[in-house]
């Protein structure tokens, strides 16, 4: 197959960055059949890599069980979380994994169409992806009667986003695909039952889908050998910030923060933001924590801050992001984020009381509980964790609240 020629394999890693031959995943999947695919997937323990960590096998099973004449597989390549750029690497260097994951997904749940929702800023990848799809069609891996299978036809189209962070949220993504404002929907009903155009839809992250061909080929048992009990397999981490070797790394789940910092050659590290702007910020004392769904969960974003950074400024930067990127439809997030930002400004100006700050932490709790989607539910994370973990720096050096003696 001529595709092999244009491939540049420079990376190595235990799962995703390991050897793979184009088309083998799909071939094996068609041999296995739906039941066995789902079995291997379930056995592998694969969970969503987009952030929420929902078991992929369950998602596929639910939509597979939904009765409908039309179903969709959507690949979420909106990659908008600040500090994440691992999906881009997969799309540029390992597109066969992503597309084959979609094809296998389509086969498993009974979808004939797949859509790749590509982040607007990645438009420059579009051409190479389109070319790749064309080659897949030539190789009979895409289109009618895939690999000669009478009962399986599948097509993939690529759609571009327009730069809203919230459109990475799966239901906002679907609204956007349908041509509406990118606003998250009410749940339930979930996309697996009522998704794109009202049909059962599986939305998976690029990396989740890219893991599938490897699992199908080598088995769930093999996949499970990597990682921890609750976080099986490996993970791509996009590391940025104060380190000598920023970039995308494939490491097994269960790697500790300290180990990761060593790999990327970070020095004088003061804090690590795990999970992007919507994640949590860990101080030195917690660098022994491990990356995984059971401890420090992340969709892949790791931002390193060294001693020279002002954590209040870091926090302010995150909050400004949310004030702007909230879709604005629900109260806790639309107004809550601006209140948190105002509080940061008050702290900067040393014009606050601790009871006021505590009120706002409680507000943050309400936002986590009552916001409509993951954006508002996680935007207070950095506020709460930075004010808690760096209180000495923020309140100690800087003095005290005006009315606080």
């Amino acid at each position: 197959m001529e595709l092999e020629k244009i491939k540049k394999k420079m990376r190595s890693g235990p799962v995703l960055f390991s050897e793979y031959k184009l088309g083998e995943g799909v071939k094996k999947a068609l041999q296995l059949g739906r039941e066995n695919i789902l079995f291997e997937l379930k056995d592998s323990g694969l969970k969503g890599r987009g952030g929420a960590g929902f078991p992929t096998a369950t998602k596929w099973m639910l939509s597979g069980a939904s009765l409908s004449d039309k179903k969709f597989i959507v690949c979420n390549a909106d990659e908008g979380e600040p500090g994440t750029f691992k999906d881009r690497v997969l799309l540029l260097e390992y597109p066969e994994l992503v597309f084959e994951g979609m094809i296998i997904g389509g086969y498993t749940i009974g979808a004939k169409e797949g859509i790749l929702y590509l982040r607007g800023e990645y438009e420059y990848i579009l051409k190479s992806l389109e070319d790749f799809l064309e080659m897949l069609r030539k190789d009979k891996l895409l289109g009618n009667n895939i690999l000669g299978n009478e009962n399986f036809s599948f097509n993939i189209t690529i759609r571009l986003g327009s730069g809203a962070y919230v459109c990475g949220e799966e239901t906002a993504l679907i609204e956007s695909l349908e041509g509406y404002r990118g606003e998250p929907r009410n749940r339930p009903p979930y996309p697996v039952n009522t998704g794109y155009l009202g049909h059962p839809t599986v939305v998976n992250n690029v990396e989740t889908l890219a893991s599938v061909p490897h699992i199908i080929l080598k088995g769930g048992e093999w996949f499970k050998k990597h990682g921890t009990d609750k976080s099986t397999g490996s993970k791509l981490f996009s590391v940025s910030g104060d380190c000598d070797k920023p970039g995308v790394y494939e490491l097994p789940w269960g790697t500790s923060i300290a180990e990761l910092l060593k790999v990327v050659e970070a020095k004088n590290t003061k804090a690590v933001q795990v999970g992007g702007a919507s994640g949590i910020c860990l101080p030195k004392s917690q660098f022994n924590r491990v990356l995984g769904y059971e401890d420090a969960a992340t969709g892949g974003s790791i931002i390193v801050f060294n001693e020279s950074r002002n954590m209040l400024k870091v926090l302010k930067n995150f909050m400004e992001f949310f004030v702007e990127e909230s879709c604005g439809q629900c109260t806790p997030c639309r107004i809550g984020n601006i209140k948190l930002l105002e509080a940061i400004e008050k702290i900067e100006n040393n014009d606050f009381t601790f009871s006021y700050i505590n009120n706002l932490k409680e507000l943050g709790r309400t936002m986590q509980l009552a916001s409509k989607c993951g954006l508002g539910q996680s935007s207070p994370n950095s506020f709460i964790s930075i004010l808690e973990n760096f209180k000495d720096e923020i309140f100690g050096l800087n003095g005290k609240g005006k009315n606080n003696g």
Partner: protein
Amino acid sequence: MVKRENERIPVSQQAHVVDKPKDLTNIGGTVSVQINEKKITVPLGTTILEACQLNQIHIPTLCHHPDLCIAGVCRVCVVEVEKMRTLQTACSFPIMSPIKIKTSTEMVRKARRHIIDLLLSEHYGECYSCFRNGNCELQNLAKEYGVDNYTFGHVQSPRYEVDNSSAAVVRDMNKCVLCKRCVRTCIDFQEVGVLEAIDRGHDTHVGTFLDKPLADVVCINCGQCINRCPTAALRANDPSDEIWTAIDDPKKHVVIQTAPSPRAAIGEEFGQEPGKSFTGELNTALRRIGFDRVFDTNFTADLTIMEEGTELLTRLKKALVDKDQSVKLPQFTSCSPGWVKYIEHFYPEYLDYLSTAKSPQQMFGALIKTFYAKEENIDPADIVTVALMPCAAKKFECNRPEMYDSGFKDVDYGLTTREMAKMIREAGIYLPEMPKSQFDDPFGDASGAGLIFGATGGVMEAALRTAYELITGREVPFENLIIEPCRGFEGVKQASVKLENCVEQYKFLEGVELKFVVAHGTANAKIVMEMLKNGELNDVHFVEVMACPGGCLGGGGQPIPTSAEIRKKRAEAIYEEEATLPIRKSHENTHVTYLYEKFLTDGPCGKLSHKLLHTHYVKRGKYIS
């Protein structure tokens, strides 16, 4: 019978409309849930909110409205659902499995209070200088949750300019809570699509296309958005100050005409249950306020039937006898100014199908400043005409440049039911206790046919009563003159009557099946217009369209709140009152006969009536420059 498919409702919200089984004992059709300590059984797909309402458990709401699809955006209705990580919104959560719900835990109460505090922190306005004071859902929430301070501060200056551009609707986004009820009303319910959320994040606000003034976009002035706004962010353009000034001016002769629907609803403004008419009481109150004459718009409703009916017969004759291909049939009614503006914007190429007859309000204005002025010997320049209407669009209509046929502005002010109630209160009058009185001459009490104009199908029913009788010489073949197919709230109704044994003059209609269609709400009007486009109305003769759901009784100037149930009660009030009236056919209104004898001497659709009672329309189109 015509299925209304609303494609715009986001599918996630459509999906909540689970067809609930009628038979609750049906296996699999129900699910048992536990709400607080109580175990209940509900049909599958019932929302938590519905389940609570059925069981007298109060859940606060703000963005929820019974007329509209679910939004789930305000988050005030959150409850705890066991095993779920976050709180869930009761209004949007369909019960599909046995769940345990808690509606008033500390977590729930705290979250609700936070949400209310957040809304208040951004709400620029003071209740005591606000027209929704005492009838505001935000104020109610603040009261319910005992808000006594601004936990998260309070805005000190307005963020948005008030949009006063429209003659009908005033938008003050400083009081907006972004519940998007207006958006859902305009897009999903009315299918006009003027309002949408604009911008993102904290800058999100409800706006028009490119944030243009409301007067410059395709708003049809129906005011339905006002009726569903929980706060004072939307209100009608209120002329009551000018009206007070006119009343206080001894030189001015101030007359008021009152439409049928406000009478059937104004009681609600005085704490009365919906469904009771206050016609006689209102007449007295208006005189006490200082109006010099109180007239019944139903008089010109009867006149409309004569004019529009004659126009229809002329069109039919041209089509059937003269075989004139250019005649446009079916003829559409033109008494709803919201509908008129809708067709001007969205179907301008079909304007010739509209009857040229003015609405009853405008006919009245033109007659008051001509016929009445002459009869009473008053200089029309000294007459101020006010129209009490259930409608916001009537404010726009009376300001149309075409409406100066008397040589003056035919109707000076359109006043809504809500604004009238305010004036009555201001005058220190408690309406329900007023003694009853009659309407003034020379227009007197009108026929019941005019009265039912207030409900969807009313114009059709009134027209049929008259047309059938003129054509055949016999009463319509319906018991008690109640033409059942015209009644009820189905979106698009179709029916027909066969014309047999016609009188000599109308022999050309012998054997014709007179077909008619009735639609209310512009979403249904759109269906009808698409049917017309597709040739599905080729054999239909007459179409009634009202821009507002339910007809005028659901108009944009009517008391707030509104719901299908309230509208149904108002309709009942109208039909009940109608049944008691001595005259129930427009052509039997002796005041109308008198007018044609004395003033419009060349008869319906004659020269003078064409000058005063008919109008023309503007091809507006939907593209905005």
